């Protein structure tokens, strides 16, 4: 109790610390003045009185210190001194301070940022109830049905017949929920808005175990015209107004009752964009509507296929469940599909894998890269701190001689370290926040769960704590070594002693830094090589000065043709056309075809494209043979198609394809290959229809207008919008992008990794250079005297410079060898890289040359210093 009240008084004193000290001074001054007055009254002269009073008072400074000590806050006061002292010292060596702080900022910031992404995407469980029991079920894909690939991949949707049997017969599952993706248009002020819509079984939400933030989710007896909306849509269109629940909204012209709102974070399915094969601009889902109930079709034709997520019963293993489903699938194949070539396959996979597998390896490799940077940063900081200790030996000797206690020295070193750690940590937090946001923004559409990523403060705390501990340890080690060495130094008065103590450590650190920089530089070179390769790949289109605009909702062919003509007639427009799938943005949409009167091996498939006549010209696609479409290829005239060269090569080689009749029309032209799905994916066979002859087949995602302009296309948006409105005022325009942007977006993954890995590699290279420079500068300083003597004895200055260079090159070479060995080991451990393949001799040679150059540059200044040393000055300096 009395301890507590005493502590309370102490704390109050601490808070009023300044006033306490000032009060003491005043009290003591008063005392001496009163005493002096009294003595003067007794007859002393004023001077004598003041001296006597001071004598009787004693040592006022000591008294004051003792008085302050009484409160027990001396250590804090000293800490304040230490911090101020540290700040002064650090300010005096701005190069050291800036380098260490920047290193810490970038290393902690980058590591926290990347790990936040890894944690949010890969490590945290999916935000559903018992997510480990959720699995994804796959059926045989269409492509494998068509005999294109062997062994058949089972990674597509599941047929409804099998699904009904699974549901009825399986004992290992709690339930199945089928869903499909599509688009719907929400009517409202400002025109219709295209939404990513999921039509799902009514058990969908309860199976996932998620709750709405307003209203409710589906009930088993809900009619088909109810809708649950996403938190984002709620915010965007309904201003977070809870009263919209129960209101009617219009989707594709049909009234739906809005029954609930999901939380902002909720998203299902996750990789909506990739499920639509690039047909969706982003991966977030907006609305969920009940799917029509599963009704087994009478003629055994699997008309509907669906994506299926299911929940295992507690304790059931995934492979056990898969085995059961395979048995059921075989039975279905034998009983329901007897006599057809239809085969049933089934595969079960944990939902988490389904969601994050596409990015798992890439993210871990990035994480590995950032850890390498962190290690290099630690090595560099250690190196710099050791170098500084060496330089400060004489200062320590002086201070010890002046009576600085060992504990006080340690405290000062720790204070210095802590200041660096805090500055680095504060900056690191900023970098982490900024970096995480950047990655999330860049990857929003492509990295699954990107919207769930938040900055991981725990990781930051760990890293920051690491910095603090490291700083303290350095303080201790450095101070103890310094005090020990200080004694010797005082005797020897040279500064080689501490150098010898740390020399080996520092050499080792530099070698490690060089090897880490080597590894990261190899990674950066691989990604850069891939980027260069892709830039030289013929895309089949001309992207300059092309604007793409998505038109929604779908309308009739007459409108599309009218829009094409009206836009093409605008001044300074070179051409216009419509397509339902913009290259490098949307793909998929495959179907089989047959050549009339001929059997092709296997069952050929091709991508189906619906275009208007001006499309090929507007996109800059080469016509290889025959003709493009014209306005005469209309609904009533004979069915015609254009195919690409890939189709001709694969299915119609060694013949004139023009005039060949397919079941989908007669070939009238052949166009050059276009890389539709991505620059890194070769063109697949494609069949183009004139939209007029097949508009009902065109996808419900609407069509995109492609306009080739003279000059920057951005200026044409207004005119084009007007032209479209004149034809059909109901049509909305969105997703306006230049083709150059579409191209850049298609390379987002490569660009993201290129950007990050290049940054990491640059950082590691700079760190290695700084490390080398530090070590060589120190060596140069330490050997200055020796060199001076040698010069005085007639040594060649250039030879002395070469001595330094040789030593730097030797360290760098050690680092390079170690780096090469580690790179090979890492590649062996990782297998293949997701981007860039294996490093070849060219890459090894280029990176080695780069690092050697950098090493020589780093050693050049110290070498020149040695070579130019003036013997007289150097010897006198000693």
């Amino acid at each position, binding site marked *: 109790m009395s301890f507590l*009240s*005493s502590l309370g008084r102490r704390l109050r004193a601490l808070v009023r610390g300044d006033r306490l000290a000032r009060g003491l001074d005043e*009290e003591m001054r008063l*005392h001496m003045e009163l005493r002096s007055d009294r003595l003067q009254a007794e007859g002393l002269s004023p001077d004598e009185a003041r001296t006597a009073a001071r004598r009787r*008072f004693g040592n006022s400074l000591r008294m004051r210190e*003792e*008085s302050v000590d*009484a*409160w*027990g806050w001396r250590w804090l006061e000293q800490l304040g001194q230490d911090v101020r002292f540290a700040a002064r010292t650090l300010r005096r060596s701005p190069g050291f301070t800036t380098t260490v702080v920047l290193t810490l900022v970038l290393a902690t910031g980058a590591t926290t940022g990347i790990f936040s992404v890894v944690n949010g995407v890969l490590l945290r469980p999916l935000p559903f109830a018992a997510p480990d029991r959720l699995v994804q079920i796959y059926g045989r894909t269409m492509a494998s049905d068509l005999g294109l690939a062997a062994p058949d991949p089972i990674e597509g949707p599941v047929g409804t017949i099998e699904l009904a049997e699974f549901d009825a017969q399986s004992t290992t599952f709690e339930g199945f929920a089928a869903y499909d993706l599509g688009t719907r248009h929400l009517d409202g002020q400002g025109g219709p808005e295209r939404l990513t819509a999921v039509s799902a079984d009514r058990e969908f939400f309860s199976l996932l175990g998620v709750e709405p933030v307003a209203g409710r989710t589906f009930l088993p007896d809900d009619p088909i015209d109810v809708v649950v909306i996403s938190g984002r849509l709620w915010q965007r269109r309904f201003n977070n107004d809870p009263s919209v629940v129960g209101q009617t909204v219009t989707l594709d012209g049909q009234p739906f009752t809005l029954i609930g709102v999901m939380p902002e974070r909720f998203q299902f399915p996750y990789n909506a964009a990739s499920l639509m094969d690039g047909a969706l601009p982003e991966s977030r889902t907006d609305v969920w509507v009940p799917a029509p109930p599963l009704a087994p079709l009478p003629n055994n034709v699997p008309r509907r296929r669906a994506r299926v997520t299911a929940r295992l019963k507690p304790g059931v293993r995934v492979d056990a469940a898969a085995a059961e489903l395979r048995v059921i699938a075989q039975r279905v194949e034998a009983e329901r599909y007897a006599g057809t070539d239809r085969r049933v396959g089934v595969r079960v996979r944990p939902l988490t894998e389904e969601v994050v597998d596409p990015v798992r390896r890439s993210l871990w490799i990035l994480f590995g890269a950032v850890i390498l940077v962190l290690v290099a940063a630690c090595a560099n900081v250690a190196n710099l701190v050791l170098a500084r200790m060496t330089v400060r030996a004489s200062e320590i000797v002086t201070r010890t001689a002046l009576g600085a206690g060992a504990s006080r020295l340690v405290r000062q070193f720790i204070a210095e370290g802590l200041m660096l750690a805090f500055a680095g940590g504060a900056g690191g937090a900023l970098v982490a926040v900024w970096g995480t946001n950047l990655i999330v923004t860049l990857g929003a559409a492509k990295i699954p769960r990107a919207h769930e990523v938040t900055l991981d403060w725990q990781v930051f705390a760990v890293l920051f704590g690491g910095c603090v501990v490291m700083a303290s340890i350095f303080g201790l080690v450095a101070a103890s070594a310094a005090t020990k060495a200080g004694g010797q130094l005082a005797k020897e008065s040279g500064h080689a002693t501490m150098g010898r103590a740390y020399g080996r450590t520092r050499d080792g650190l530099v070698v490690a830094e060089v090897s880490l920089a080597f590894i990261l530089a190899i990674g950066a070179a691989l990604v850069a090589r891939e980027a260069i390769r892709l830039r030289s790949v013929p895309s089949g289109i001309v992207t300059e000065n092309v604007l793409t605009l998505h038109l929604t909702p779908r309308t009739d062919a007459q409108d599309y043709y009218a829009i094409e003509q009206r836009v093409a007639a605008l001044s300074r427009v070179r051409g216009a056309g419509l397509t339902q799938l913009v290259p490098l943005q949307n793909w998929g949409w495959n179907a089989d075809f047959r050549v009339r009167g001929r059997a092709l091996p296997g069952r050929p498939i091709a991508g189906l494209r619906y275009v208007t006549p001006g499309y090929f010209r507007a996109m800059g696609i080469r016509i290889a043979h025959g003709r493009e479409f014209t306005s005469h290829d209309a609904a009533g005239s004979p069915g015609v198609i254009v195919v690409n060269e890939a189709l001709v090569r694969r299915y119609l080689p060694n013949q004139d394809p023009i005039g060949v009749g397919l079941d989908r029309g007669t070939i009238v032209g052949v166009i050059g290959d276009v890389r539709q799905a991505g620059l890194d994916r070769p063109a697949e066979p494609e069949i183009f229809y004139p939209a007029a002859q097949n508009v009902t087949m065109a996808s419900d995602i609407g069509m995109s207008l492609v306009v080739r302009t003279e000059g920057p296309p951005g200026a044409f948006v207004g005119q084009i919008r007007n032209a479209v409105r004149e034809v059909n005022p109901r049509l909305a325009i969105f997703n306006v992008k230049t083709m150059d942007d579409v191209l850049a977006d298609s390379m987002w993954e490569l660009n993201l990794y290129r950007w990050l890995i290049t940054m990491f590699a640059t950082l590691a290279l700079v760190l290695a250079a700084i490390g080398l420079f530090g070590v060589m500068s120190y060596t140069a300083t330490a050997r200055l005297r020796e060199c001076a003597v040698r010069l005085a004895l007639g040594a060649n200055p250039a030879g002395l410079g070469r001595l330094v260079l040789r030593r730097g090159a030797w360290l760098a070479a050690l680092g390079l060898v170690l780096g090469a060995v580690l790179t090979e080991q890492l590649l062996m451990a990782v297998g293949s890289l997701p981007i860039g393949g294996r490093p070849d001799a060219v890459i090894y040679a280029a990176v080695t040359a780069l690092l050697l150059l950098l090493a020589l540059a780093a050693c050049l200044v110290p070498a020149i210093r040695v070579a130019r040393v003036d013997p007289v000055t150097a010897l006198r300096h000693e």
Partner: protein
Amino acid sequence: MARDAIPPGTLQLLILRTLARDGELHGFEIAESIERTSSAVLVVEEGSLYPALQRMLVNGWVIAEWGTTGGNRRARYYQITRAGRKQLETEEQQYLRIAGAIARVLQAV
């Protein structure tokens, strides 16, 4: 006039006793009071009053308040607390016990 430095460890006792007797005093008055009551035999190294007073403040034996002297100067006045009086009693008894014992030793023949 012979002046003796006060025996070590007794400064606190003297201050507490002075404050208990005279009420509110500032530092100079405490020094004067000790000197006067000891008939100018006991001399305090006057500055050492202040660390002692601070220690006693920390322990809660005295409290301090700023006031004005007769000569219209600002001074800090110290006052003994209840805890201070208890401490005074303890220290006084302890001192008397020791002093008595020493006296007995010295007087023994």
